């Protein structure tokens, strides 16, 4: 296992293995996405309170989850990079940032689309909404910092430190709903002991969540591959590859 990891962590092997994984991941993304959309849009019944508008949940909730997940993923990668000095981890972190920011933006946009019928306003200064906005700022801060430093190695490590420091905000975003009584929905799905959501709605939600996960990994690997090529452009194997 360890040797496999080490092998995987070498840029050359990563490039090759990732190249093989991408088509499979892309196929899974499409599969889950189609299934999720089908169950979500055609099978799941309208909500007894919200009618049809609740269906935006199938985009909103997965992207909100992803916005948090990607940050944690980046934090883990940054930690690996800083502690063991594995360059590939940095490639992963920096390739994820833009995706994370996009998911966050998507959660914000769909959330405010949903907020209009639900709360009568596009935007309210509620704890969870605000903290999601802050998450967007965290991503943007990382992107700006990395872009501002010329030296790639230094940029990666500086960004890593920033990401790790920002991790404190993640639990705050997640628990903000419990700490302050706010407008936003409390945990409905993540209460595993007694899910307060009907199965016919839960199933498409989970399918969509899985689809988003696969989508993220597909894109991250694709971005990481170009990034690896860019960084290793001076090495023998890349020159050989590009002829």
């Amino acid at each position, binding site marked *: 296992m360890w040797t496999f990891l080490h092998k995987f962590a070498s840029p050359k092997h990563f490039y090759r293995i990732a190249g093989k994984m991408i088509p499979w991941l892309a196929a899974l993304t499409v599969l889950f996405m189609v299934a999720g959309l089908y169950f979500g849009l055609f099978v799941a019944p309208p909500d007894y309170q919200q009618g049809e508008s609740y269906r935006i949940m199938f985009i909103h909730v997965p992207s909100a989850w992803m916005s948090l997940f990607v940050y944690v993923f980046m934090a883990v990668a940054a930690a690996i990079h800083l502690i063991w000095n594995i360059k590939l981890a940095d490639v992963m972190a920096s390739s994820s940032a833009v995706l994370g920011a996009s998911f966050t933006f998507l959660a914000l946009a769909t959330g405010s689309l949903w907020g209009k019928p639900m709360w009568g306003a596009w935007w309210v200064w509620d704890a969870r909404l605000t903290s999601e906005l802050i998450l967007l700022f965290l991503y943007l801060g990382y992107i700006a910092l990395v872009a501002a430093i*010329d*030296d790639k*190695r230094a940029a990666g490590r500086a960004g890593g430190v920033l990401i790790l420091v920002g991790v404190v905000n993640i639990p705050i975003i997640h628990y903000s709903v419990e700490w302050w009584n706010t407008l936003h929905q409390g945990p409905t799905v993540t209460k595993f002991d007694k899910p307060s959501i009907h199965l016919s709605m839960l199933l498409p939600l989970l399918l969509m969540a899985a689809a988003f996960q696969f989508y993220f990994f597909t894109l991250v690997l694709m971005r990481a591959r170009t990034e690896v090529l860019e960084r290793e452009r*001076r090495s023998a194997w890349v020159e050989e590859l590009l002829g």
Partner: protein
Amino acid sequence: MGKPSPDAAELQAQGLECIRGDRLLFCDLSFDLAAGELLAVEGANGAGKTSLLRILAGLSLPSEGSVVWRGHAIARRRAEYCAEMIYLGHQGGLKMDLSPLENLRLWLTLAGLEANDDAITHALATVGLDGYQDAPTRILSAGQRQRTALSRLLLSAAPLWILDEPFTALDTRGLTLVRQLLDRHADRGGLAVLTSHQPIEVSGPLRSLVLA
């Protein structure tokens, strides 16, 4: 470059490589330096002298290779290495709003040495700053600032000196002074790595390393 003689060598550069931006400044650079040896790093403007010295001082990391001090990679034993090394870069590291005396006092304490005002005043007088020890550094001339920075060499017993263009802005008496300091350092078994675009005339042997 001299042959590796690992037993005597105090400072070793092992296969150093430095890449800045797209340019490879040097690669596979190795040398050993034994006690009492002075090494002049030479090269045209932009050859990579400053980059090399910063790597030797542990301020930046080489993209390949490592620097070894008394048998240990410096990245592993940073504190011990820093206690035995003085680095003087292009900038003196002086606070313009403090006097030379205050600047040196802090520097000595940070270096883990005892800050003795008499000793500092004496050192400042030696480098020709008699009467300036309490003036704010801001008003000193370029050469006087350089002298203040150099007076550290008098105050510490660190065996390794890493000096980036120590002769900048010095007048002829200043030059002589630094040369004498280097001579004495080598006599006592100290090591020094330095750069300079002016000839370095020391009485002992001076090895040189040319960066192309």
